[in-house]
């Protein structure tokens, strides 16, 4: 199926569709991980985006029933160099293509994904349209230019859990504010012995406190942290009342709640090979990352907050902690899936906050 990707800067890539038909719009980004497309596809943080994989062979091991990070893919479109036609793995139950079709996700293969990546690296993320429709190239480019910006959209309602749910265990109760939660976060907490209560993104501070949790975890999620108005309000109201831990979007919201500001990165960090230096231990960990926004370091000045982690490549803030309150957060994904689980110990640190 002849399929195109048009960018707002006028570039058009021609390839073959291997997902749903029709059109989709979104922010075009790239991820450099070489494995883990199933986890990536079902990471709700990609909501509103058209994702390009830089690794050229995708779909090699198909889709299996175990490695989903959420109930469905929330991304708008998926772009690869080559979609595997004959996947093989002992757990495979479905091909990538069938899965994407089933979930009505547009997918494009056969384009020069490296050229696309270089455009994004040089010009920054931009809006784009994937279409299988027979429209004029120019019109597609115009559509890309009219597409919604990632900032200003209400993506949380789309990705968050419609209802509260609990994964029972004997240990301390942790509430997870689901801003687009990856299930591996829940699994890590469960494994550490927590009772995990996952609540919808719009849950208020009072409702959370009523659950009498030992701590709150603000999850990862899509979009601009400044659009997460209700969670921001909730977080502000919980500062000083509960130990707080934020991951990715949760980390950004926590920073906003503490009075700092965030900004949009040129093209973000998305991959499984990002080095993060723990400033206390001086050790470097390889982390899994997926974010387009970051904490503006200048706005931390004067706040009672310390930077605990930095990205070794661009020295951006990857972790903060409150100097007196049991509050800390990380920009990267300690829960892994996909990517290295080198920093899984951070969940232990979170637990120690509850116990303290």
């Amino acid at each position, binding site marked *: 199926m002849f399929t195109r990707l048009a960018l707002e800067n006028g570039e058009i890539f021609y390839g073959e569709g291997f997902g749903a038909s029709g059109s989709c719009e979104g922010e075009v980004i790239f991820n450099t*991980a070489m494995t883990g497309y199933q986890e990536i596809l079902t990471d709700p943080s990609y909501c509103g985006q058209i994702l390009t994989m830089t690794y050229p062979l995708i779909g090699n091991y198909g889709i299996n029933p175990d490695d989903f990070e959420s109930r469905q893919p929330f991304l708008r479109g998926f772009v690869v160099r080559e979609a595997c036609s004959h996947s093989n793995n002992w757990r495979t139950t479905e091909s990538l293509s069938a899965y994407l079709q089933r979930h009505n996700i547009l997918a494009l293969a056969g384009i020069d994904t490296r050229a696309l*990546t270089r455009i994004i690296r040089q010009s920054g993320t931009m809006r784009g349209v994937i279409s299988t429709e027979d429209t004029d190239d120019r019109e597609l480019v115009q559509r890309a230019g009219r597409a919604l910006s990632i900032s200003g959209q209400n993506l949380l309602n789309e990705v968050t859990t419609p209802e509260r749910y609990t994964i029972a265990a004997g240990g301390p109760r942790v509430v997870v504010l689901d801003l687009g939660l990856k299930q591996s976060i829940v699994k890590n907490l469960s494994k550490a012995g927590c009772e995990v209560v996952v609540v919808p993104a719009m849950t208020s501070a009072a409702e959370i406190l009523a659950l009498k949790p030992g701590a709150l975890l603000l999850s990862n999620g899509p979009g601009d942290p400044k659009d997460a108005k209700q969670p921001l309000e909730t977080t502000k109201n919980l500062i000083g009342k509960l130990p707080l831990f934020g991951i990715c979007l949760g980390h950004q919201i926590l920073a906003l709640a503490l009075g700092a500001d965030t900004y949009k990165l040129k093209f973000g960090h998305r991959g499984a090979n990002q080095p993060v230096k723990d400033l206390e231990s001086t050790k470097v960990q390889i982390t899994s990352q997926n974010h387009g926004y970051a904490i503006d370091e200048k706005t931390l000045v004067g706040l009672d907050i310390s930077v605990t982690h930095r990205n070794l490549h661009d020295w951006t803030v990857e972790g903060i902690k409150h100097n007196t309150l049991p509050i800390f957060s990380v920009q990267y994904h300690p829960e892994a899936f996909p990517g290295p689980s080198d920093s899984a110990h951070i969940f232990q640190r979170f637990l120690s906050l509850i116990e303290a």
Partner: protein
Amino acid sequence: MPKYRDIKKVMVIGSGPIIIGQAAEFDYAGTQACRALKEEGIEVVLVNSNPATIMTDTNIADRVYIEPLQISTLTEIIAKERPDGLLPTLGGQVGLNAGKDLAEQGVLEKYGVKLLGTPLAAIIRAEDRDHFKQTMKQLGEPIPASAIVSTVADALTFAHGTGYPVVVRPAYTMGGTGGGFANNEEELRITAQRGLKASPISQILVEESVAGWKEIEFEVMRDGNDNCITICSMENIDPVGVHTGDSIVVAPAQTLTDQEFQMLRSASLKIIRALGIEGGCNIQFALDTNSFNYVVIEVNPRVSRSSALASKATGYPIAKVATKIAIGLTLDEIQNAVTQKTSACFEPTIDYVVIKVPRWPFDKFALAQRSLGTQMKATGEVMAIDRNLEAAILKAVRSLEIGVHSLHLENIQALSITELKEYISRPNDERLFALAEALRRGISTAEIYRISRIDPFFSQKIKNITDMEKKIAAYAGQEASLLPRNLWLAAKEMGFADETIAYLLQSTETAVRTARKAAGVLPVYKMVDTCAAEFAADTPYFYSTYGCENEAAPTSRQKIVVLGSGPIRIGQGIEFDYCSVHSVWALQEENFETIIINNNPETVSTDFDTADRLYFEPLQVEDVLNILDQEKPEGVIVQFGGQTAINLAEPLHHAGIPIIGTAVEDIDRAEDRDKFDLLLSQLNIPRPSGRSVKSAADALPAARAIGYPVVVRPSYVLGGRAMEIVYSDTELMEYMNSAVKVSPRHPVLVDKYLLGTELEVDAISDGVDVLIPGIMEHIERAGVHSGDSIAVYPPQSLTAEQKALLVEYTTSLARALKVKGIINIQYVLFEDKLYVLEVNPRSSRTVPFLSKVTGIPMIQLATRCALGKKLSEMGYESGLQPDMPFVAVKAPVFSFAKLADLETSLGPEMKSTGEVMGIDSDLPRALYKALLAANLYIPPTGNILATVAEKDKQEAIPILKQFAALGFTLYATNGTAAALAEAGCEVIRVNKIAEGSPHVVDMIRGGKADVVFNTLTKGKTPQRDGFRIRRAAVELNIPCLTSLDTSKAILHVMETLKKGGSVNHITIQEYLGL
């Protein structure tokens, strides 16, 4: 952590000669290490016995010792140099073992030398099977059930408990030497015994077999601050059961889910931490295809062949970073040399697929066993990069230079379905081609998995190739221009060569190329940048693909392309990489932008900072022309890349590309037999008389006219084995009828075999002046391939007149051929007359050796001559340079032990895989060192087992007699024993094999022979006794002398050393007075 302040002088141990399992990758690693140390202001002392390496250049290390890597030698050098640190982890297993021994024997402690990089305890935990097993057990990392045993009986007991098959792995060996699978008790007896012998500590691991599981490797690095990263994952297309060096390997791993991948990655980090390695490490896993079960197969606590591959596959310089870690730096303090912006503390991510295919020596060794198992047999490898696996496979196959352009192999196409399946089920060097043929004939990927355990993911990729063949073949007989554009693109994206498309269309490569270019189907070049384009990089490292964007925009500088020499193989080794690299350096000094094209991941030439630009591509006409089309260089240099590059001269010239240096027609005059004969007669230079015959019937009168013995060989290059010396009509007819296919189109050359002294020169010429840096004299008489002979510089037996004549011939040949650059000429001195045997209008394997011992930068001079400069401008005169006041010996090194069923006696076909050098004040001392370095240790006294052919007895008996005089006890089979007794020697008679046990082979296997002296029965008739004697000696690592000349030389060494005196260990810099 800043680097150690107390480390100012570091000794680096190289890996010695190139042998199967330890090839050029360690020159690459060692060179990077030396440069990294110098970059940090550290003085580098390098010891390596291999003169063909770049690391032994005086500009790479401050103090270079080309000396044997024996512990005694290393100890003396340490005592003399007093380095602050020793870096043993970049010299392969040889370097690691030496470092371990020096530490264990207290040498390092005595001289206050710090063992840099991985600590001794870590080396032992990884290398000693028992320690390794314990460590893995403590970590909870699964390993196959195994037992470490020191006797065959214990091995059998273990296997009795676990059941067969089992694998045998000797401790402290490389390339799987002496290991193997055993399917039953009988096989285990043999394998276990061989393994025990191969292990320097007589210890083997007998292990439960996980053959058929996925084989996955990780390259891991750790620094002193416990930061750990993985550089690259690799997946073997051949499942567990084939040595990784003999496997087709893909990077990154392709068939693993993230969960599986991370499971193994986490295990890798856990292991490198537990072992305490500081530097690089390679970990091999076996992963079940139907569960998360895995086992750790092996850990190499050092830079390895896989590290070289991972470095080239990702662009991440593992050896360099490992070196910096060794002197105390942490990963986050080291810069990523590729991006120049980001840190070395990250994991490379790639946006292409890399494949490595081994290069096996079976084209030369047709009779060796082609089956593959735990013992590595490949001499080299090629790597190919593309955006899909199919294209990478096809590029790799074309890079092998085995005469194929696709997955078609004639002998495989002739097999029946049953034979094909059989061929696929047992790993061998041609399995990839058999796989393709089976898929062509409709065998399913599932069936292939069933019989071979090759993952259907991989066989499907091969099926995609064979399906594409069918699509193209549908246009057979039509003009290439009629191919639809989308098919053009699809075929080229999948890596189909123009030659393959021509084959399928029944057209010509030129027609296809023209049609393709007319259709606008042109390659683009993408960058290898370690980061999948996430960061801007300036790496000048490219591969071709078909897509939209070309990243390799040519610069406006004047540029010259140097062609590399492809994979390491018998006859074309690391020497040619040395030459290519030196040529690049010379061109850079002349202000040219340099571009190198090569496909061998083990080499220095394919390091991204050697040339200004590196294209990792097949060295085939299409690929080279494509690069030239876009780069538009001033020209191409072909004389330094061995036969690979020379073979491209004519087609490139034909395509209008300027060849820099000796003109193509002059190259042809040296290579074409008829033109060459004409040239020699014009110059009045004699060569052994010879004729070209077009039928078996013509051969007899020709040979009789010339007079026996004659050398016979096909005139066309068939890749070996067909050259022989025959002594009689019978032998000649046998050769003509069985060994070659003679026809008017493929004549056979019959030449007089002159049993004289062989001499060799490499000369540099600007067309007028001809500089001869030195003459090398061979110890073995003509008849043994020059690459397998021991060469001595300066010559020991030549008169001034003979030298003058040799200079005269060389000069007139170089002038007549208008050589601009380098030329290699081989002569034979027979009955005081000098004959020319061969002229090679290119650099030869002796160039690095001769450059090193004469101090003349031969390749630099030759490159400048090729550019049109005059020797006189460079301060050199015509003629032979004065002899240096020392003697240097170049000795061949063989890998016979790794190749079962291979005849080990030497002849006109080259068999050695590498070389060593011995240098000292006189010949016996230099030769002694060379023999030591070649691992040919002859004890001062002991038992000699002699079986001498009738034709050699007259000459051999006095030699044996002298050995006896030195205190050796002589053992001999009947005829030899009688001859010895008659000559008045005491001799103990031993049974021939046919006479029953205990016989000669029993004596060798029983460890009672210290030296085997066996000369080949006249002619080629395979003498089963002799063959078995030689194989037994090789397999048990007992010196086996098959040449009377070598034996005489050794005798001379032993007599000299017995008289006393010691050898000297001084640097090359000191020898050369630098």
